[in-house]
Each structure stands twice: as structure tokens, then as C-alpha cells.
């Protein structure tokens, strides 16, 4: 699935709306301030397109809310608060060293065939990668199973693509305009 033109338009609209909030304090002297404003409003715009249906969008909104609560409130005035909260998964605190050591002992006890070992290593690798994916996708910790994780990744990738497309075309146009 590729980003569609309607998605681009909606994103652009929301982004503009978000940037309006920063307009009054237009003397954002530093480039970094402006960049921050741009990025935050773009992120919230992207997440708000999903209207709280996906896990990553909620997590992203929460993240930006910690940085700029006012902006989030303004941009998401239409959406209820409850839809935006992610359910926290019951987390078992485990000391990695202890877990690893006990796993090693278990492995030693079990008699392993060659195929089993290969399969076990492959599984470990996949597990590590999925954990890496959870770190990258916002709200990955809240996705309880792998199916959900992959669905969310799909959606997140498409949204990221729209975001990049819109931003890039604006930058290109602005650049082309400046060159005149």
C-alpha cells in the first residue's frame, strides 16, 4: 500500500494547523527551535490522522505531549482523552544477567541435536530483531503480540512515507523558489 494523495493533503492541512501555533512566537531565534517546532507539529499531524486507532499513533502523541503539551492539546481538540491512552502491559522485571545464566544452565542440561540448535539460534535471532523493531516503532512496548506489532509497523511505515513525501516536496519547492 502506498500513500495516497488524500493522505498527503490531510497531513499537510494538519501540519499547517500545527505550525500556526508557533506563528505568534515567530522570533524563534535559533534554527533548532524552529526545527523542533516543525518536527513536533509534523509528528502530531501524522499521528492524528489515525485518530487514535493505532497503537503507535497514541504512543507518538504521548511522546510529543511530554515535550509540548499545549500543542498537542490544541491540535487534538476534537479527540477524547481516553482513546489516546495506551494500556500498559504487565511488565515482569527481570534481571538480564540472572535470566541469561539460568538459560545457559538449562541449555547445558538439555541434550541437543544439530537441528535443534540451529532452530534455537534462529529463534533467538528473530526474537532479538523483533525487540529491535519494538524499540524503533513508537509504542512498541505496548504491543503484546507479534501480529499486532507487524500490523502497526505496516501502518507506521505508510504514515512515515506520507510525511517524508510531503516534507520533501515542500523543501524542494522552497529551494527551487529560492534559487530564482
Amino acid at each position, binding site marked *: *500500500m*502506498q*500513500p*495516497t*494523495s488524500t*493522505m*498527503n*493533503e490531510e497531513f*499537510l*492541512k494538519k501540519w*499547517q494547523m500545527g*505550525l500556526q501555533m*508557533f*506563528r505568534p512566537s515567530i522570533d*524563534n531565534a535559533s*534554527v*533548532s527551535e*524552529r*526545527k523542533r*517546532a*516543525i*518536527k513536533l507539529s*509534523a509528528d502530531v499531524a501524522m499521528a492524528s490522522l*489515525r485518530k487514535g*486507532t*493505532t497503537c503507535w499513533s497514541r504512543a507518538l502523541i504521548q511522546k510529543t505531549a511530554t515535550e509540548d503539551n499545549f500543542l498537542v492539546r490544541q491540535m487534538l481538540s476534537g479527540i477524547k482523552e481516553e482513546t489516546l491512552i495506551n494500556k500498559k502491559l504487565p511488565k515482569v522485571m527481570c534481571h538480564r544477567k540472572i535470566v541469561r545464566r539460568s538459560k545457559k544452565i538449562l541449555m547445558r542440561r538439555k541434550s541437543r541435536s544439530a537441528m535443534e540448535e540451529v532452530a534455537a539460534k*534462529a529463534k533467538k*535471532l*528473530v526474537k532479538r*530483531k*523483533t525487540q*529491535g*523493531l519494538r524499540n*524503533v*516503532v513508537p509504542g512498541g512496548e505496548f504491543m503484546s503480540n*507479534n*501480529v499486532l506489532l*507487524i*500490523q502497526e*509497523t*505496516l501502518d*507506521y*511505515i*505508510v504514515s*512515515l*512515507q506520507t510525511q*517524508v*513525501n510531503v*516534507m520533501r*516536496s*515542500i*523543501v*524542494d*519547492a*522552497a*529551494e*527551487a*523558489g*529560492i534559487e*530564482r
Partner: protein
Amino acid sequence: MLEGLVSPENLSLSYADMSVPERLKWLQQHQQQEVLSLSSNDSPDLLQILQFHGSNNDELLQSTFSHFQMVGSGFGTNYNMGFGHSHEAMDGCISRTSSCQIHPPDTMGVMLKNSEENRAISLKNKRKSEVKTREEEKTEKKIKVEAETESNISNKEASSDTSKETSKGASQIQKLDYIHVRARRGEATDRHSLAERARREKISKKMKYLQDLVPGCNTVTGKAGVLDEIINYVQSLQRQVEFLSMKLAVINPELELGVEDLSVKQFQAAYFTNFPVVIASKPSVMVDVPLFPLDQQGSLNLSVSNPNQTSIDAPSESWETQSQSLFASVLR
């Protein structure tokens, strides 16, 4: 022959979970079976089960159905071929089923025997497993797993324009669709491993979609590689966003993206750069192509610098003036 086709004690159901579209499907099946001319009276429910297969376009279903071999005389295939003539939805199944000898009287008799059990089964909503044991090597099993409507999702995601939201919404509404999974030879047939297998196949299906989405994923095999590529891709996209926002901040000191009054579409079109744009009939935007698709035009040749000389088949005549004002505001 078909003893032990169904062991009702293995079935567990929750009828209350049936949702409205599900009931509609039920009704649909009931109506479908009335169309069938052949002996629908005797075993309407076996028919229902197979119609259910037929009406579902799920790839998984059909592929598993292709392995479908009933006891002894190839009962199931006979069954399909016998009943499929008058029913279009079964054609998909028929084409995949292997040809077998047809013994209609036997099959009818068998069906009659099992009609009651099947009636009991088909009335129930959610099944964990049906165990069918034979003397021969293969053990076959059907699982009806309550899962998202795989067929709907696969159909919807196959078409490029539907958003993830709608498919997810649909899956939430139509919660029940049966996935038939056939245990292969030598594999465990208990409930848990089959449910696990169904889950795994769901995951691999979604991974295939991901592979289509992420460029360059086709060459890699194996989950770990694909996941690696996905992680890299997502990270690169995020970095791109950062970089572009920084660039915008530098270029655009006023944080002004455009004029409020204009429609966004015209605003977008105004941002085309010099090179000619050939718009495909299907609007689609790839990440590497920094252009917005316009729905109508064949080819655009916009020169951004001279709004006076825009040479496009513009959707509206006021295009030029508006684009001029746009650029005035942006460039300042």
C-alpha cells in the same frame, strides 16, 4: 468409512459471540444451499460447511482445500464436484481439488449418516477442532479458529488504495471467519499446535505485505533478514524526517508553508518543480519520487519560477493568479 468424522466432544463454542455480519453470512449460506439442486435436504449442513469454504476467497482456505482428501474414496472431492456444478462459489474449490472417482450413492449414504453430527456442528459457532481419524497414515484435522476475517483483509490489502484503518475496522466488525488449517503428515494435531500454526501463518502473511512495502526486501529470505531490513528502513525514514525538518527550518524562517485560503490541492500542484511530470493513471507516491500525484492531468510541465507562464492544463482558470500569490507569500 467416515467414522469419527466428527467428535462433538472436542468442539467448544460460544454462540453468543456471533455478530450481525456473521449471522448474515449464515443466512447467506442457508439461501445458497437452497439453490443447490442436489439432495440438499439430506445433509444441508455438510453443504453449508463446504459452501462456507467456497464463499470465502481466502487463499489459505483454498490452498488447504487443495490438499483436501477425504476418507477412502475421495469423498470430499466427489462431493465438491457433485455439488459444485450448480454453485459458482464452489468453482474455486473444484478447480483445485484432485479428480477422483465418483460414487454418488456411497457418498450420499455417508453423508446421510453424518448429517446429524454435522448439523450439530454447523449450528455451533466457534470450533476449536474436528478430529477425523483414519486407519491410513494421514491424519487430517479442521480447525475453525476465530480470527480476523483473513479474506477481507487480504482482499483489501491487495487493492492499493484502501487504508489500513478500514481493513482494521472491518476486521473488528466481522470478527468471525473460519480458517481451515490442515495438519500435514507427521505433524502434531492437537489443538494448541494447530492454533499456533494458524497464528504463525497469519504472521507470515503480514510479513509478506511488509516485504512488498519495504523496498529491497525481496532478496532477503528468512524472518530475521526481513525484520532487519524493516528496522533499517524505518530508521532511515525517521532520519529523513529529522533532516528534512532541519532543512525546512533553515530555508523557511517564517515557518510558513502556504496560504490558508487556497485549496490544498492547488497549493500542492504549485510546488512542482521544473521537470515534466507524467502522472500515472493510478495515483501512487513512492518515497523516492518527491511529487504529489494529481488526479486529472496527463502530463504537467510546471515552471515554478514563472507563474505567469505556467503551461498546464489547469483544473481551473484562476490557477495562475492563485499560484502567483502563493509564491509571493512563500518566497517573500
